[in-house]
């Protein structure tokens, strides 16, 4: 008799456990990184009755496993890194574009137009101070724009540096967390049971890590979990090799292992940030912020020298000697220090409008030369006119920005597809869980009914049989 009761009880308990699992799944539907779990159920060992055969002894839930496809994870981690890389490039380049301010009235194009308009105006009344004043003011607006842009580029580059530092810290901290989880999982899984929720947590950490840097994950048969960057292990089961930031001799940032070997950063946010910080566009490197800083410096040097070379030939108002520069800059940091020559700042009559010694009031020969220099582009240190130069900078950053946007978008679609697949495999479906719930509930009720029936049988046997002796 006991025998049947136990079988029913096992059914009851198995249904109950299945309900718990269902409940856990529903509760974690929105948990990030969660993969649905299923109970592994089997019939318990039968009991052999001599002459009867094997009679079943019921059922048991012997393990709870998570539904997960390692291949999909592997693809996810592989494709997650490029999206991180292009995402930071896209964001930073968009910022850079806005910083240059085209198309708007706060752009270098506008400053240059205004400056040359004021010069052309001066050609019509070279002796009038009220015509000279705007030339100085507009020139200061131009140099001011360049100073400010140089400063904002430097700020932007600094921000990128902070991001790199944060990302490196993040990598180290995530590596440590993974190592800790490895230990816990190892302890939990000693008896061969899968530590589902801890594994989900670990995979989530790798998800996050794979966006920052290109990682490769490997889990050996005996459960050793390693994460490596460019072939060197970052996490080897419970051990972590941290990475650090070093400065190269040319001011570039390099990421090194503890033993000063370079970390092979091939993609991920970290790669994007490093490209933006270090890339100067030479020898096939990425056109990062440094590149645009260099271009701006190049513009300042070329423009200032070209303009000065003609300005020096001319004569200021009533001046018999020439050779006065209009612009000046510090060669160590041209764009940030670009300004007007002190002599121009102090005395407007030093603007060399005249082409002949003596600087007669109506002599505008040199101004005309300065104005037409903008059209011919002669004498500037770069090829072509200043306008061409500005246009080429603009086309550089706009093309790079488009590339980043396009790469991000196509990579986003790829990743979305993988995520879709992952969700299809590991995600929780309400319909499914509800159907299961009803199923387990019914099994539970049926098992309970079984106990009820057996109880009645026992009742008859115990209470109603053999009343004769009473």
């Amino acid at each position, binding site marked *: 008799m006991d025998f049947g009761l136990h079988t029913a009880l096992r059914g009851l308990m198995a249904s109950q456990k299945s309900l718990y699992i269902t409940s856990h799944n529903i509760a974690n*539907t*929105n948990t990030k990184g969660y993969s649905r779990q299923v109970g592994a159920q089997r019939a318990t060992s039968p009991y052999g009755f001599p002459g009867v055969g094997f009679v079943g002894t019921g059922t048991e839930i012997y393990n709870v496993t998570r539904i997960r496809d390692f291949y999909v994870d592997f693809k996810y981690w592989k494709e997650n890194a490029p999206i991180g890389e292009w995402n930071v490039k896209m964001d930073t*380049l*968009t910022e850079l*574009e*806005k910083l*240059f301010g*085209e*198309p708007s009235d706060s752009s270098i*194009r*506008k400053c*240059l*137009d*205004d400056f*040359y*308009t004021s010069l*052309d*105006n001066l*050609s*019509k*009344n070279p*002796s009038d101070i009220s015509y000279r004043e705007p030339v100085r003011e507009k020139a200061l607006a131009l140099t001011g724009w360049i100073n400010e842009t140089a400063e904002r580029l430097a700020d932007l580059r600094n921000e990128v540096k902070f991001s790199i530092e944060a990302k490196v810290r993040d990598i180290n901290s995530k590596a440590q967390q993974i190592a800790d989880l490895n230990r816990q999982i190892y302890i939990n899984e000693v008896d061969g049971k899968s530590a589902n929720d801890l594994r989900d947590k670990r995979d989530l950490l790798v998800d996050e890590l794979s966006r920052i840097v290109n990682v490769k994950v490997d889990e050996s048969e005996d459960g050793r979990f390693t994460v490596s960057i460019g072939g060197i292990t970052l996490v080897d089961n419970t051990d972590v090799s941290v990475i650090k930031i070093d400065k190269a001799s040319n001011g570039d940032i390099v990421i090194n292992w503890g033993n000063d070997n370079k970390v092979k950063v091939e993609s991920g946010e970290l790669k994007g940030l490093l490209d933006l910080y270090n890339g100067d566009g030479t020898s096939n490197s990425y056109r990062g912020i440094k590149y645009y800083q260099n271009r701006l410096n190049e513009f300042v040097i070329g423009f200032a020298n070209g303009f000065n070379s003609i300005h020096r030939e001319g004569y200021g108002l009533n001046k018999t000697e020439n050779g006065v520069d209009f612009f000046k800059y510090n060669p160590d940091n041209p764009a940030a220090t670009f300004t007007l020559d002190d002599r121009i700042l102090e005395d407007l009559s030093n603007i060399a409008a*005249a082409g*002949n010694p003596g600087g*007669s*009031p*109506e*002599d*505008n*020969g040199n101004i*005309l030369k300065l*104005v*037409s220099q903008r*059209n011919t582009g002669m004498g500037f240190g770069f090829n072509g006119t200043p*306008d061409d130069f*500005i*246009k080429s900078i*603009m*086309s550089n*950053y*706009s*093309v790079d*920005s*488009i590339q980043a*946007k396009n790469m991000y978008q196509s990579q986003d679609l790829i990743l*979305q597809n993988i995520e*879709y697949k992952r*969700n*299809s*495999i590991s*995600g*929780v*479906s*309400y*319909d*499914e869980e*509800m*159907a299961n*719930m*009803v199923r387990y509930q019914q099994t539970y009720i049926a098992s309970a009914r079984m106990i009820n029936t057996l109880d009645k049988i026992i009742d008859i046997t115990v209470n109603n049989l053999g009343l004769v002796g009473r």
Partner: protein
Amino acid sequence: MRITNNMLINNMVYNLNQNLKTLERLQYQQATGKKFRVPSEAPIAASKSLKFNTDISKLEQYRRNTEDALSWMSDTEAALAEINEVLKRAYELTVDAANGTKDGEDLLKIKEEIDQLKKHLVQMANTTFSGRYLFSGYSTDKPLLSDDGTYNIAIKSNEVFSYNIGNLEKMEVNITGLEVFGVDGSFDAESADIGDKPELIKILEDLSTALENNNTDGIQESIGKVQSSQGHILSVRAKVGARMNRLELTQSRLDLNINNAKELLSYNEDVDITEVIMNISMAENVYVSSLMVGAKIIQPSLVQFLS
């Protein structure tokens, strides 16, 4: 394939987001009337915009330059016209004086008037245009002639300044006093020094002396000189007139160019509002219908139907 609830929700959110992005871009276009806000949205159009803006700025400057040149020239022209009047009157008087019917007293009266005409000529030589001496070459801060009719400044025939009226096109604006008044019996001299006597003044002074001395030969000689100098002034006026003509032509050409450039700029970076509004209402429809469908799909599950 298993479809889970989160897949549905993620999909819906992604698609709604895409729809919103389109709407946001269109809304920006409608609000600003511009096709793009950063160059990367339209690199070629952005670089064209750069050029058109600069072109317009230059063309408008050239347009202003032609106007300023024109007003300088019309003042020059007016002064030259008056100089011509002076010479015409001098010619009439000289012819009158030379007809042999005048006695010494009459001639002295004529001399008085010639002297007045000379003074007027000096005044005309020092005509100003907003405080600048029209005929003083580069030294527009100083009068050309001093009161006694000699050159007040050293002047060269090449002290001619130009204004920009095109990218590589310049227009000479002023006429030097040297060209108008001449020196040393010629109107083609290359330079004159302080104290030199301008030819026009000298002609009138000679005439004045001849009249005073009742020198008939001198008066006769002056008739020819006054006449030829009148011819000279006419040719200078013709030169100024031709320049003004050219400027006016340039001006109407610049107007046309400015209009063209503005049109191109607008075509390049301005949106067609009708089109944008149409696109907005289409995008709106898509957005609203995806909201509707989304709301229908993500809501129900078996949960709602179990009791």
